[in-house]
């Protein structure tokens, strides 16, 4: 008899679990958007008790999940393509991720063109004197394969080939965190690195790209080169989904986005 009791209890437990599961909001997609989404969800869950699950498995997977109704929201860190929108998806920008290029404080160079940036990272330009600096070897600091920042940086600067293979110099130092990028650039006079605009510190010097300074204003005016949009896609959003998206665009949501180092987009 006791055994049966336990079985029934376990059965109830699983039943309850599956019940609550069906009420959860499912979010799936880009690994670059996921950290920000995590913070937003954290606050939202505190406020509303709504259960939300996040699954970071890449932008394309997010679009697929949203279009097949496997997820309520898909996170996308690239532009959503036309044939993807044709699946009945609605796409909107929730934040802008801008990247900054940093050099050592003792470096005199203040500006690089997109071409120069590309040539430095591919190894064509090896000395700072070639771009108006001191006679000093350039130490390239890059991120690891799979990093969303690396992917965006390479795509925008033109370091990616047609087949998505990378042209970054094989002798570049590879680190796997923003902190290590800053550390390397701070320690090495000839170093150059890139990171999210929100992560820059006073220990390094941020340089202009194509003579445009990486400021929030320039990013919003669409002048600065190194930016990408964080999009979310939905398909026939229900009320719960709409409520959460409303929260993202609320003042509280914007505060979190800014805290995480991203740039808000005010809804029209």
């Amino acid at each position, binding site marked *: 008899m006791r055994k049966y009791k336990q079985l029934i209890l376990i059965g109830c437990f699983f039943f309850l679990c599956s019940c609550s599961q069906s009420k959860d909001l499912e979010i799936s997609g880009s*690994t670059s958007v996921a950290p920000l989404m995590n913070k937003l969800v954290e606050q939202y869950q505190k406020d509303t008790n709504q259960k939300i699950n996040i699954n970071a*498995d*890449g932008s394309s997977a997010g679009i697929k999940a949203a279009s097949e109704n496997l997820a309520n929201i898909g996170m996308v860190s690239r532009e959503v393509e036309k044939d993807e929108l044709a699946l009945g998806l609605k796409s909107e920008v929730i934040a802008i991720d801008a990247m900054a290029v940093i050099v050592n404080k003792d470096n005199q160079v203040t500006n690089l063109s997109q071409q120069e940036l590309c040539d430095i990272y591919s190894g064509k330009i*090896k*000395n700072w004197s070639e771009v108006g600096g001191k*006679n*000093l*070897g*350039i*130490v390239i600091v890059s991120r*690891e*394969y*799979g*990093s*969303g920042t690396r*992917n965006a940086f390479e795509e925008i600067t033109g370091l990616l*080939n047609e*087949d*998505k*293979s*990378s042209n970054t110099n*094989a*002798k*570049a*130092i*590879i*680190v*796997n965190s923003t902190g290590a990028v800053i550390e*390397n650039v701070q*320690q*090495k*006079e*000839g*170093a150059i690195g890139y990171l999210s605009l929100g992560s820059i510190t006073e220990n390094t010097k941020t340089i202009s790209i194509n003579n445009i300074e990486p400021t929030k204003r320039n990013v919003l005016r669409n002048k600065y080169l190194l930016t990408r949009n964080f999009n979310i896609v939905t398909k026939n959003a229900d009320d719960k989904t709409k409520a959460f998206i409303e929260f993202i665009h609320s003042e509280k949501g914007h505060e979190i986005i800014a805290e995480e180092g991203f740039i808000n987009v005010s809804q029209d």
Partner: protein
Amino acid sequence: MLAKTKKSEKKRLLFESLYRLSVIFSGLILFIIIIFIFASGFPALKEYGFFEMILNKEWSPNATDPQFGLLYMVLATIISTLLSLLIAIPIGVLSAAYLSKMAPKKIKKTIMFFVEILAGIPSVIYGFFILKTLVKIIYDNGKYIEGVSGNSMLAAIAVLALMSLPTIITVSVTSLDAINKSYDEASYALGANTIQTIFKVDLRAARLGIMSAIVLGAGKVIGETMAVMLVSGNAINFPGNLLEPVRTLTSNIATEMAYASGLHQSALYATGIILFILIMILNYILLVVIKRGGTSDA
């Protein structure tokens, strides 16, 4: 009386099964790890091919036609392991000989105390130390040379040699201490001096122990991850220049695991399989060397 023996018999059986369980547990863990790694790495191995993986130099996991060549990393792992052992073995064995056979008791005790502390320091601390000293020195002296960034194979070798020293010293000292005193006495009685005794008698008599010290040191070196990741620069680069950055197999896994997915992730597990095989080969070679050394003039 009978009840008592029964009780002790029960106790014996209980403990026996406890021991047996412990053995099964540790064996099982190894088994599970092997199965897990091979199962996770299999998709990439199947898709890309084992020999392609170790003989191709191209590592480009995010391309539309992904490449998972590990040649440069295999070479970097082998070369940095061998070179660091080449530094650590002579220093380690000679210090062990001095500590065991020549040093006064007090000095031996103090130094062994510090060596044992060194053995217990986490590897990331060694890495950080080399990063702040050797890497900085290399960069400050070579920054006008293009391609010198401080993070380099030399720094990796230094940190590995430094890390394996305590292991090699402690195990060697233990085996040298265990030699029968009569060997030394016989050598001295024949008129040999200390140095002759150490090289002609002691090091030969303790050969097996010193070999196991080297095996343990090598194991530590080839599997080291964090410290190497900090100082090696992680560039997928041919390990032909000591001052240029390289990537070892272990740091390939640790550097890219965080964001890898799909076939890329599987390829990182496959990197683990190849590292596993490399360690097995290394252990086998060392075992053969030890066996041959042990039988040649026993």
